[in-house]
């Protein structure tokens, strides 16, 4: 801004930002402080009474829980697979519907629909109508090919959750890529074609670099939402069988609202915060420069 810097122009930007920053700061710091306090005391909802100082017992308990490392691993696998699937398929689908063809409007509406479905319905729909080993549509498909129907939620619990979540997020990735492809320089493309490049060369040297920014955006946003995947697991597998589909969110949930152990759950929550910060540290380095 080239306007003269009176006290007004310095105060105003801060005043405008204050409500957002203030509320978000409270939203972050108050729960964080309470969580830190809870994590240091013995506090079980089923055992009312004095909250005694527990030191680091809750942390030790949480991290030595046999479900801890599987949960970390499952979280990473879930996020990685869903992002991989949605980015790759999203780009391919985006290219497929980028140029006009009969019924493009309807195809777009059909493609985008899963994004509007609430996770709870998504989970129930796949759990019962699609993946049920006896009456599900997939079971029938398998039988048609002479195969034994798969008991998805029992035999492939994490894969089942990945399929559901990817189904939900593919439209989102696809939409962002479609929008971005619209701004791809067609003359540059044409020039490359004239110069004798083939479709693959044009894809890898022109389209992919053009999509780097939208890819960063898709990864960033999906990461934010996938770190806290809950409903799909809660409704379908409840983290099981065993801990096969338990992610961090669900493990902490299990400690707090199923075991009623606030202390351990809070220690777990702090781990989740640290975990999210590690993930976001790398993420921000990767896509941060694309935010300006």
């Amino acid at each position, binding site marked *: 801004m*080239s306007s003269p810097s009176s006290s007004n122009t310095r105060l*105003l930007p801060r005043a405008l930002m204050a409500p*957002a920053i203030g509320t978000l700061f409270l939203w972050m710091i108050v*729960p*964080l402080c309470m969580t830190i306090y809870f994590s240091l005391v013995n506090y079980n909802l089923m055992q009312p009474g004095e909250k005694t100082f527990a030191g680091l017992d809750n942390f030790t308990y949480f991290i030595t829980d046999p479900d801890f490392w599987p949960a970390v691993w499952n979280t990473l696998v879930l996020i990685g697979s869903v992002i991989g699937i949605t980015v790759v398929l999203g780009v391919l689908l985006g290219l497929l519907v980028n140029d006009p063809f009969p019924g493009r409007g309807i195809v777009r509406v059909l493609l985008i629909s899963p994004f509007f479905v609430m996770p709870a319905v998504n989970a129930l729909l796949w759990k019962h109508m699609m993946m049920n080993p006896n009456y599900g549509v997939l079971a029938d498909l398998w039988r048609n090919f002479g195969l034994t129907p798969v008991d998805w939620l029992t035999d492939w619990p994490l894969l089942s959750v990945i399929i559901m979540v990817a189904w939900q997020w593919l439209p989102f990735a696809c*939409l962002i890529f479609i929008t971005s492809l619209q701004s791809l320089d067609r003359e540059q493309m044409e020039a490359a074609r004239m110069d004798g490049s083939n479709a693959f060369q044009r894809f890898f040297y022109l389209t992919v670099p053009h999509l780097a920014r939208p890819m960063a955006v898709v990864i960033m946003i999906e990461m934010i939402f996938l770190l806290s995947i809950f409903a799909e697991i809660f409704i379908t597998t409840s983290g099981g069988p065993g801990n096969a589909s338990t992610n961090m969110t669900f493990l902490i949930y299990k400690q707090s609202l199923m075991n009623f152990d606030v202390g351990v759950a809070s220690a777990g*929550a702090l781990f989740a*915060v640290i975990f*999210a910060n590690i993930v976001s540290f790398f993420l921000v380095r990767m896509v941060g420069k694309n935010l300006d």
Partner: protein
Amino acid sequence: MNTVAQQNPVVSSPTQFAVQKPPSQFLPVALRTAGAWIVALLLFFPLGWLFLTAFKTEQQAISVPPLFLFAPTLENFHEVNSRSDYLLHAMNSLITSLGSTILGLAIAAPAAYSMAFFRTKKTRDILLWMLSTKMMPAVGALLPIYVMAQTAGMLDSVSALIIVFTLSNLPIMVWMLYTSYKDIPPEILEAARMDGATLWKEFRHVVLPLSVGGMASTGLLCLVLSWNEAFWSLNLVAAKAGTLATLIASYSSPEGLFWAKLSAASLLAIAPIVIFGWFSQKQLVQGLTFGAVK
């Protein structure tokens, strides 16, 4: 598409050239059309199946092989309506979604405005910090928020959900609005300011008209996210302020195979937002670039 260019060798302007012959095509039209339709129908199939199942009897819903043709019945919808108060849940969903969207826009717009038009070195850090609050899993804040809501007597209340939804959507909203405001040339604001426009007038008559697409798109995304939110709804509210997400979760308990009723309830829960999404998708997509499109 080569033939088109050969038949029309006279190309008057580059733009006309681009319109007539999009050169980014990798496949012939017939193949692309078929491919796109097949993929779209496959992806849509689960939803279509939900729709069909909602109109079946319970017997038909679990028939082997699955039924595509049957005499539709409305019985499931009557059943769902008598068993649970659909209208109450739908109303709660509507109020919480709209409320958090309006409140969110009111808080996010000034912040995004400030970040876009009074940029400093810290702007990017502030934005990243906001996004990082969103990255902390909600479950980490569940107990404290639960205890606070309990202390404030706001458990099972619509206002608690509005506050929580607003705060959890706020970082994304600020980011979206920021990218849409950033496209406005600062010179225009400068000119308005020279003419003595107040801040509100400048926002109302310059920024708002130029960023109406971005604002609408931000609001739409927030509406969809709030409507579909499940974690906080499942944990903070119950009978009184329950949203459609909690209604659906109540059908998830293992009480036998009532797929038709489950489908009817699900259909009722998602129909408003899906249909709304169909009509607003073009608008939504326009602002959903997060600055990814230059």
